C-alpha cells in the first residue's frame, strides 16, 4: 500500500508523477524507442483513430499543447485571439521545444475547429502534417465520409511507413485499445465512490500522462494496479467516513494546461472533482469500438463520430451524458472550463448552463481562461464564491 501524502490539501500517492514529470520521462523513453527503429505518429486530438497507428506498427503520441511558454513565439505568426491550445501546439513546433514533435515521423491533425484547421496549414511548413477532415454531424452521409477519411488515413500510414495494414492488424489494435478504454473507464469511474477515493487532480493527470507511456499493455497494467490500490485504500480508510466536500463535475475544453490553476485550486479550497466530461475524461472511453462489426473501418468511423465534443452539431448527446454523470456521480455542481477563443465550447456553454441549472437544478460556473497565471486571483474568487453557493 502506498503511503498517501497530503500536499497542500490534496491527497496524492507518494510516487505521484506530475504531468510535466511524466512528459519529461517519456522523452527519454521515446528516444530509446526511436533508436530501436520505432516509428512515431504525433497527434493533437482524440478524434484521430490511434488503432490505425498501432496497426501500422507505429506509436501514437500526444503532442505538447498545454503550456504558455511557446505562445509568445507562436503569436509572431498566429493571431493573439486564438485559443491557447492551438497557439501552444504551433508554438512548441515552431520553437522546437516539443521532443515528441521532433521524434514524430508523421504529424496528424484533424479539422475539429476553424483555428486548428488553418493552423495545420502553417504547421505543415515546419513538418509534414496530414489532416483528417472531420464532418460535424452524425448521420449516414457524414459516417460514409468519415469512414473514407479513416481509410485514407490508413493508406497514408501504409505509404509513409511502407507497410500493409491488414484487417487483422486493425482488429488486434481495436482489441488492445478497447481494453485501454475499459481500464481507463474503470479508473475514471472510481469518482462515483462517495466519499471521493482520489483527487480529480490525480485522475486527470494520470489520464493525460498515459499517452507518454508507450506500451499500451503496460499502461493498462499500471492503471489497473492503481485502481486496486485506491479501492483498497478507500475500503479501509474512507468508506465509512462521510465527506461534506462538494462533488464537482468538470466539463468543457481540454484542461491539462489549466489543471493547476483551476482543478488543483478548487480541490485545495475543499471540493472534490470526481467526474470529467472532457477529452481526457470519460468522453472518449464511454463507447468502445464494436468488435463484432465485420467492417473494421465502419466500426472505427462509428465510434469516433460519436465522441461528444462541442465541434459536433447538433451535440445533444453531450448533454444527455452530462445528465447521466450528474446522477451517477452524485454531483453537487458543474464547473465548465472554456479556453479563450474556443468558439464551439463557448457557444455550447449556454446550452450546458441551461441544462444543468434548469433541468438538473444544480449550480453551474463557467470559467473562461487561457494558460497564463494573470487571472488566477480572479479565478480563485470565482471558485470560492461558487463553493459558497453550494455550501452556504
Amino acid at each position, binding site marked *: 500500500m502506498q503511503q498517501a501524502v497530503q500536499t497542500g490539501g490534496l491527497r496524492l500517492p507518494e510516487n505521484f508523477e506530475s504531468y510535466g514529470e511524466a512528459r519529461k520521462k517519456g522523452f527519454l523513453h521515446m528516444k530509446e524507442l526511436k533508436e530501436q527503429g520505432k516509428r512515431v505518429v504525433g497527434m493533437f486530438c482524440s478524434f484521430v483513430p490511434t488503432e490505425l497507428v498501432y496497426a501500422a506498427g507505429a506509436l501514437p503520441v500526444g503532442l505538447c499543447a498545454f503550456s504558455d511558454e511557446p505562445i509568445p513565439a507562436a503569436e509572431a505568426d498566429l493571431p493573439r485571439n486564438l485559443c491557447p491550445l492551438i497557439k501552444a501546439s504551433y508554438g512548441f513546433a515552431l520553437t522546437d521545444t516539443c521532443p515528441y514533435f521532433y521524434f514524430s515521423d508523421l504529424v496528424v491533425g484533424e479539422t475539429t475547429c476553424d483555428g486548428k484547421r488553418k493552423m495545420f496549414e502553417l504547421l505543415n511548413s515546419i513538418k509534414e502534417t496530414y489532416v483528417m477532415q472531420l464532418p460535424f454531424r452524425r448521420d449516414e452521409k457524414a459516417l460514409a465520409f468519415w469512414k473514407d477519411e479513416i481509410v485514407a488515413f490508413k493508406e497514408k500510414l501504409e505509404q509513409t511507413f511502407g507497410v500493409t495494414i491488414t484487417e487483422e492488424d486493425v482488429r488486434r489494435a481495436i482489441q488492445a485499445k478497447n481494453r485501454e478504454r475499459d481500464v481507463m473507464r474503470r479508473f475514471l469511474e472510481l469518482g462515483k465512490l462517495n466519499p471521493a477515493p482520489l483527487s480529480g487532480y490525480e485522475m486527470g493527470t494520470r489520464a493525460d500522462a498515459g499517452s507518454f507511456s508507450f506500451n499500451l499493455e503496460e499502461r493498462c497494467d499500471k492503471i489497473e494496479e492503481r485502481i486496486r490500490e485506491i479501492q483498497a485504500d478507500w475500503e479501509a480508510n474512507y468508506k465509512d467516513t462521510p465527506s461534506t466536500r462538494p462533488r464537482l463535475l468538470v466539463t468543457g475544453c481540454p484542461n491539462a494546461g489549466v489543471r493547476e490553476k483551476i482543478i488543483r485550486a478548487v480541490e485545495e479550497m475543499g471540493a472534490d472533482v470526481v467526474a470529467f466530461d472532457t477529452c481526457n475524461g470519460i468522453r472518449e472511453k464511454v463507447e468502445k469500438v464494436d468488435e463484432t462489426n465485420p467492417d473494421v473501418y465502419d466500426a472505427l468511423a462509428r465510434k469516433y463520430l460519436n465522441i461528444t465534443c462541442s465541434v459536433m452539431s447538433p451535440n445533444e448527446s453531450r448533454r444527455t451524458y452530462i445528465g447521466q454523470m450528474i446522477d451517477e456521480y452524485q454531483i453537487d455542481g458543474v464547473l465548465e472550463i472554456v479556453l479563450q477563443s474556443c468558439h464551439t465550447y463557448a457557444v455550447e456553454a449556454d446550452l450546458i448552463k441551461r441544462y444543468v*441549472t434548469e433541468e438538473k437544478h444544480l*449550480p*453551474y460556473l463557467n470559467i*473562461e481562461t487561457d494558460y497564463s497565471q*494573470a*487571472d488566477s*486571483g*480572479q479565478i480563485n*474568487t*470565482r471558485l*470560492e*464564491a461558487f463553493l*459558497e*453557493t453550494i455550501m*452556504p
Partner: protein
Amino acid sequence: MSFFTGIDIGSTAAKVVVLDEGALLERFVLPTGWSSKETAGEIARRLAAAGYPADQAKKIVATGYGRISVDYAHKVVTEITCHGRGGSALAGEDCTVVDIGGQDTKVITVEGGTPASFLMNDKCSAGTGKFLEVMANRLGVDLGELFTLAAQGTPLEISSMCTVFAESEVISHIGAGESRADIAAGVVESVITKVAGLCARHGLKGRVVLTGGLCESAYVVDRLSKKLGTPVYAEPLGRYAGALGAALIARGMPAGAPFRPAAG
C-alpha cells in the same frame, strides 16, 4: 456588549460595518491605498477609536480583494457571497444584486437570502468603477463631477471594449472639441451598457439592487434603470453592502432575515 464586524477591502475603497444583535452600530469607509495590510491596520485603529476594538468583537468576517490581509478576521468570505447577502438584506430575500466595483462588476442572483449564482465581468476594467476613474481623470474632474456633467450632456459614442482604447477615443473626442458634458455622458453610458450586457447574460430575477459606491449617484441609477427597463433600487447603505453582508455572516444571522438599519 457583543458586536460583529464586517470588513470589505475593495480595490479602491475599504468599507466597515459593525452590527449588534439587532442594529447597525457603526460604519465607515476609507480609501484602500496601496497596501491592504496597512489598510487593515488603519481599520483596526479606527474600530478601536470608535469603541469596537477587533479583539472584543464576537466575530469578524473579511471580504473583498484585500480580505486575506485582515489577519485579525475570524473568517474570510468572497465578496460575491457578501454582496449577495448584504444586497439582499437591503432589497429583499429574492433579488438580483448588481455591484459595480472598482475592479470588477458582478451580477448575483439571490434566492431566499442566499446567493445562488453569479456572473463577473472578464479580466478587463471596462464596465467597472476603474473605467470611470480613468476617464474622469482624463476629463480633469472627480467622480461626483463626472456624473453632474454627464447629466447635462448627450452621450457621445465610446465603443471600445478596452479601457486603454476607450481612453484614446475620449482623447479624440476632446481633440475634436466635443463638450465635456457630452463626453462625460458617453463615458457613463459606456459603463452602463457593459453592466446591462452582463445583466442580460446572467438574467435578472426579482428586485434589482445596485451596490457599490456608484449607487450613490442618482444619475447612474436612473441610466441603469432605463437601460435594464426595470427600476433599480439603490440606497445609501448600498456602498456598504459587502461589509454589511460580511457582518451579517459574522453574526450568523439566518439567511434572509430582514435587516433594519438603526435610526440616524
